[in-house]
């Protein structure tokens, strides 16, 4: 194939810099045509090619006896025992959700579910990690309502329970909300499928919805700054169809389980091109596909549209040689559009024909090996100054009870029930621990005693003020949340949401965050099995760029050997002694309290000791498994006082604790500081000695805090040494905690 005219002046329209265009020409040995340039631009975009992030990823630990499938496939897979595996992955749909929240979020769910069943796993849980701007603004209401409607519309209809997630509010997300969706699927080891073209002679089968012009250029779109201009020339919105996805899911799983499939992948970002060229690359082979055979929804579609359309609910299947007929018959039964569009060949080219002519002829490797950039990262002096800020002048409020009530009514801390009640969280009848009941969701595995636990976590304020510690803390919190339900943490998936990596301040955050995740995963023995990157989450306000708080969301999966041995956060009937595992907080830096009450986003993120974290997790698990506690909760935003209040509200009973305020420590730090590596448990009265022996034996620091008060309706916290006491009725706490999201959601 030859093409001589240079497209260099238009490089940007293909999503390429001129340097990248020159690199393409030199690797190709000729000028590309426009289709080829667009295909390369899409494949080298951050979304598909990870050009700015991949070089950092080598730091991640990715192996371990529990890892059945590490990064590089549609989803990671961990072994949970008894021949079962769990496939899981998280993905962002931030930009589409900012433009059209309902469909943006809905197609986010659809996309991640396809990644899961492409592994041969039956999706069995979804979690959604959401970030929005100012809770009082009409835009936030519009986005939150739309996103929740989209997730519930798609997840409820397809029948996969949405069992957990997070919702936080911060002004940095005002224009760039984050919608990260995690899905889990269950599979038998022998059904594990791969995204490969297999061997020479294999057929390439397109199955699912017809191709339309929707979402065109989505891959490029999601890698560009959102500006006023791009608001105007919005690409067509992608609309999801959960009913079609359900058919595709059932058909794909049936085909994989019948042994008819040599390779499978969904069409996600950059549509047909990215799925087929990744599958070819994994097989180390070339392919030829005939674009005339692509089923279309609209008249007159041209190759660029056929190649890059992001129409939803489409997959590529490669039949086992000799069983093509059986596969096509099976797919037809599900009334899906099914067409053989190409073949695997003994060369290294990615070839497309249209109307009898070759319209694209590129090396498979060139498409899959995007240039890698290592940039210079420099911490923003502004942020450093905020971190180093002296907080000793911050006054201690007189009425700390009122502060507690205030914090409970902050939308980031308040009850998320108005959201998760809109999600079917029980369909499939596996949900043992429902949203709101504990720090992680727990699902049983039918036909075994085991349970699977999942959580998603990130405290963006920590990451903003200290990206290394903040990101490591997200991993630690996720692992701790799993321990709080009685699950052994196994592995993570991450979703790195950042601003523009070309800005040194942002690149610094990205690099530090990746290093923090890597170190925490190594220390806690939870390897990284996959992830997703969403960059350019920033908005131009005049000349000024407003980037989101760096948000590396961590999705973690764990296993309960016996699902009946577990814990939740509510205080249980009967008198219990409350213990804190770990150490009291000693500072108010980087806390929600400091921001909400004092209007300051500043200070040092509490130090994270990963060795201590490991011991607290071990201690929590040991207590739960020894039957010494069925209550566990870790303090996060709002600190110890908020965590205690949440336990009392959930249990419908009061408590009384006495906290020793060490010399030189502020009382508000002990109450509301956000030190890591802490878990509150409740040991039935009479079993204290056994619990203390167990913790002592494991070297877990602990302190007895006080007791639950089954008959009482007050939460009382005495600070000894500081001569401070706060006592608030459950009713007041509950009202403050339940109202905010009902109001926002309307």
């Amino acid at each position, binding site marked *: 194939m030859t093409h001589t005219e240079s497209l260099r002046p238009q490089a940007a329209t293909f999503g390429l810099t001129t340097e990248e265009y020159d690199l393409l020409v030199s690797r190709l040995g000729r000028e590309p045509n426009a289709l080829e340039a667009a295909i390369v631009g899409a494949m080298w975009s951050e979304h598909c090619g990870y050009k700015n992030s991949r070089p950092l990823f080598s730091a991640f630990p990715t192996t371990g006896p529990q890892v059945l499938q590490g990064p590089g496939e549609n989803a990671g897979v961990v072994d949970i025992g008894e021949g079962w595996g769990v496939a899981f992955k998280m993905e962002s749909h931030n930009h589409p959700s900012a433009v*059209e929240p309902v469909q943006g979020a809905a197609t986010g769910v659809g996309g991640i579910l396809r990644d899961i069943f492409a592994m041969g796993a039956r999706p069995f849980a979804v979690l959604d990690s959401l970030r929005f701007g100012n809770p009082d603004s009409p835009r936030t209401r519009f986005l939150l309502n739309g996103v929740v409607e989209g997730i519930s519309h798609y997840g409820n209809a397809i029948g996969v329970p949405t069992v957990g997630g997070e919702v936080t509010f911060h002004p940095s997300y005002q224009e760039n909300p984050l919608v990260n969706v995690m899905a889990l699927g269950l599979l038998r080891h022998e059904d594990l499928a791969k995204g490969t073209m297999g061997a020479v002679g294999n057929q390439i089968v397109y199955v699912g*919805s017809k191709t339309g*012009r929707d979402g065109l250029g989505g891959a490029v779109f999601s890698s560009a700054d959102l500006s006023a201009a791009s608001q105007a020339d*919005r690409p067509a919105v992608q*609309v*999801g*169809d959960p009913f079609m996805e359900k058919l595709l899911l059932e058909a794909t799983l049936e085909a994989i389980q019948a042994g008819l499939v040599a390779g499978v992948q969904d069409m996600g970002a950059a549509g047909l091109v990215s799925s087929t060229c990744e599958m070819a690359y994994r097989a180390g082979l070339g392919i030829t596909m005939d674009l005339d055979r692509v089923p279309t929804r609209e008249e007159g579609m041209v190759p660029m549209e056929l190649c890059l359309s992001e129409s939803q609910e489409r997959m590529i299947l490669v039949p086992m040689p000799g069983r093509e007929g059986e596969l096509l018959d099976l797919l037809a039964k599900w009334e899906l559009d099914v067409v053989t569009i190409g073949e695997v060949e003994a060369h290294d080219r990615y070839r497309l024909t249209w109307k009898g002519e070759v319209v694209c002829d590129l090396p498979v490797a060139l498409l899959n090996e995007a240039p890698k950039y290592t940039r210079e990262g420099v911490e923003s002096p502004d942020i450093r100054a905020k971190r180093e800020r002296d907080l000793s002048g911050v006054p201690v409020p007189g009425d700390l009870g009122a502060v507690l009530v205030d914090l409970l009514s902050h939308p980031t801390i308040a009850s998320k029930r108005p959201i998760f009640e809109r999600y079917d969280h029980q369909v499939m009848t596996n949900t043992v621990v429902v949203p709101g009941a504990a720090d992680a969701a727990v699902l049983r595995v039918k036909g075994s005693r085991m349970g699977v636990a999942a959580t998603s976590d990130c405290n963006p304020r920590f990451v903003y003020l200290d990206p290394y510690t903040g990101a490591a803390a997200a991993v630690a919190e996720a692992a701790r949340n799993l321990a709080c339900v009685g699950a052994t943490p196994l592995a993570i998936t991450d979703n790195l949401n950042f601003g523009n990596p070309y800005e040194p301040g942002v690149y610094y955050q990205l690099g530090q965050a990746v290093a923090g995740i890597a170190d925490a995963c190594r220390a806690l023995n939870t390897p990284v099995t996959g992830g997703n990157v969403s960059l350019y989450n920033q908005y131009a306000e005049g000349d000024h760029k407003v980037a989101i708080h760096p948000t590396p969301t961590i999705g973690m999966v764990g296993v309960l050997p016996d699902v009946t041995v577990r814990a939740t956060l509510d205080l249980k009937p009967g008198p219990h002694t409350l213990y804190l595992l770990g150490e009291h907080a000693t500072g108010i830096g980087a806390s929600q309290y400091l921001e909400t009450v004092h209007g300051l986003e500043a200070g040092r993120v509490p130090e994270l000791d990963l060795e201590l974290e490991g011991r607290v997790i071990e201690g929590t698990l040991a207590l739960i498994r020894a039957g010494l506690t069925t209550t566990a909760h870790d303090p996060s935003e709002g600190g110890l006082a908020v965590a205690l209040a949440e336990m009392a509200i959930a249990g419908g009973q009061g408590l009384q604790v006495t906290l020793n305020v060490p010399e030189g420590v502020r009382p508000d730090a002990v109450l509301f500081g956000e030190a890591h590596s802490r878990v509150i448990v409740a040991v039935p009265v009479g079993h204290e000695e056994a619990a203390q022996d167990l913790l002592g034996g494991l070297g877990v620091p602990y302190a007895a805090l006080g007791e639950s008060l089954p008959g009482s309706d007050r939460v009382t916290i005495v600070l000894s040494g500081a001569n401070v006491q706060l006592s608030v009725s459950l009713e007041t706490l509950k009202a403050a905690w339940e109202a905010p999201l009902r109001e926002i959601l309307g």
Partner: protein
Amino acid sequence: MPQYHAKVFVTLKPSILDPQGRTVERALAHLGHANVSGVRVGKLIELTLTGERPEVEAQLAAMTREVLSNPIMEDARWELEERPA
């Protein structure tokens, strides 16, 4: 002041996938209506406005664009008719 009855017709833009329409079309085919094609499902919003015609028209146009339809995905048109008091 006069009253007007308005009908606003909101339809998905032609290039946007219409899962509802697709499902209805398939279902109709299953029920033996094989000669039916191009099914699209949209909205019909009826409302009453009080005011003088020119203002009411301008208001309806704005409402349609800003609230009753989502211009990213939908086309909308409307009819206005004076209502006997």
